[in-house]
């Protein structure tokens, strides 16, 4: 049992738009046959962003969405007291493919690709505290939240960002060739969860035998590691929310996170 953090902010962006309010009722119908819903290259002013990868721009936008949600500016997360825990199942594929096909720069290859997105976020926003890069699907996102909670509980940081990013466009043909396309479209998405110390409890345990979140996936589509954070966004909007239970299953891994006090700041808890 770990002392649970409190949610200070949460930003979700996807191929459907900003926030979970933008999701259609049925992703498959709304995709109208498109196997991938791309976010494209998000436009930003300034020469500093010219060399930032497409996935890096999406990641920064997700962090900014979390800042907006919390009513804070970038200065609130800059510095060494902010941890960044990054998770992805697929976002490094684009960099690898660009390198293999000679279409990208020389610094994106197998050993650098998973580190590019969190590095771009860290550099853009000056986040230089505890740092972890986790590769995997939805269960890994739950472990990322748990890792962030442990960092907060240990006093290693004052706030932690759990950032999940997935892009698919560059490797869409590979997903099709590998038979990875499902009934739901692959939807590019990113989410950032801003956590601070709280007074609830957090418990990570083996999850359900069946893949959870079917209703959410029907609306969202396949977003791999982003899915649990979208589920959290739906939960916090529910007027009848109780203990938060996030469940995830992915390629044989099954994990569940039970979380009390997710929305209860320290001041309200005492």
């Amino acid at each position, binding site marked *: 049992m770990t002392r649970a953090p409190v949610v200070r902010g949460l930003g979700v962006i996807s191929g459907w738009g900003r926030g979970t309010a933008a999701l259609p009722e049925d992703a498959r119908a709304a995709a109208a046959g498109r196997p991938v819903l791309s976010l494209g290259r998000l436009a930003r002013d300034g020469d500093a962003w010219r060399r930032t990868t497409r996935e890096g721009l999406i990641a920064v936008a997700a962090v900014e969405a979390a800042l907006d949600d919390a009513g804070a500016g970038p200065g609130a997360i800059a510095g060494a007291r902010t941890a960044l825990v990054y998770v992805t199942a697929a976002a490094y594929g684009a960099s690898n493919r660009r*390198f293999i096909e000679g279409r990208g720069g020389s610094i994106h290859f197998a050993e650098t690709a998973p580190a590019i997105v*969190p*590095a771009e976020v*860290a550099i853009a926003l000056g986040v*230089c505290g*505890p*740092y972890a890069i986790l590769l995997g699907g939805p269960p890994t996102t739950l472990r990322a939240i748990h890792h962030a909670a442990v960092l907060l509980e240990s006093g290693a940081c004052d706030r932690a960002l759990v950032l999940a990013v997935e892009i698919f466009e560059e490797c869409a043909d590979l997903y099709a060739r590998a038979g990875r396309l499902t009934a739901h479209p692959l939807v590019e998405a990113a989410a950032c969860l801003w956590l601070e110390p709280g007074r609830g409890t957090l418990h990570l345990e083996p999850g359900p035998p069946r893949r959870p979140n079917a209703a959410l996936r029907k609306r969202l589509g396949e977003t791999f590691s982003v899915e649990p954070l979208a589920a959290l966004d739906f939960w916090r909007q529910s007027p009848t929310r109780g203990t938060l239970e996030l469940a995830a299953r992915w390629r044989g891994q099954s994990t569940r996170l039970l979380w009390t006090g997710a929305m209860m700041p320290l001041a309200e808890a005492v």
Partner: protein
Amino acid sequence: MVAGGYDVLCRFVMRGFDALKALTRDDIRPFDRRRSGLLLGEAAALVLLRRERDAAGPRLGTLLGYGSASDAAHISAPDPEGQGLERAVRAALRAAGIGPDAVDFVSAHGTGTPLNDPIEAAVLRRVLGPRAPTVPVNSIKPSLGHTMGAAAVLEALMCLYAFRRGLIPPTLHLDEPDPACALDHVRGAARAARPRISLSTSLGFGGCNAALVLEGAP
């Protein structure tokens, strides 16, 4: 919990490191004035970790502390000031509940690249303070190559075996120490010593820094 890492060599990986101009045609020479880059190795290394209360029976050692930090400086190069690495090392010491005076030995990341080694040496001098000239430091990458995902685990195990065997392996090919990398380098031959508390540093692309503090078990 089983924890560890592995990496395999293939043309894709070799081309990537070559594109960064990180590979040498010479030997790997960490902290040497002639150092010109790294060579890759292939390895897998795993450890079985148990909580103290469950850890009955023999053990190789104890993980006392861990720290990590981002540079937030560059996609592929380390921060020239090494601030991220310093934060990671200090966090690991804090987590271990010890000060730098307790460190008996440092297993350095020590890649042998022109950029890494002086930055790392400067960080170790800052952290170790007045004891820096007397704390033995090595890098086993000249012996094994840079085994990437496995490197940190192998180096942690080396720290624990150094205590158990009473020998610190030398940094091979460190013949002409670079004054910019001045530390108490173990070179030439293994040094007879029994370092109970070790500090092990690791750096990764994207400004990823990590440090472990380990205690050997007799």
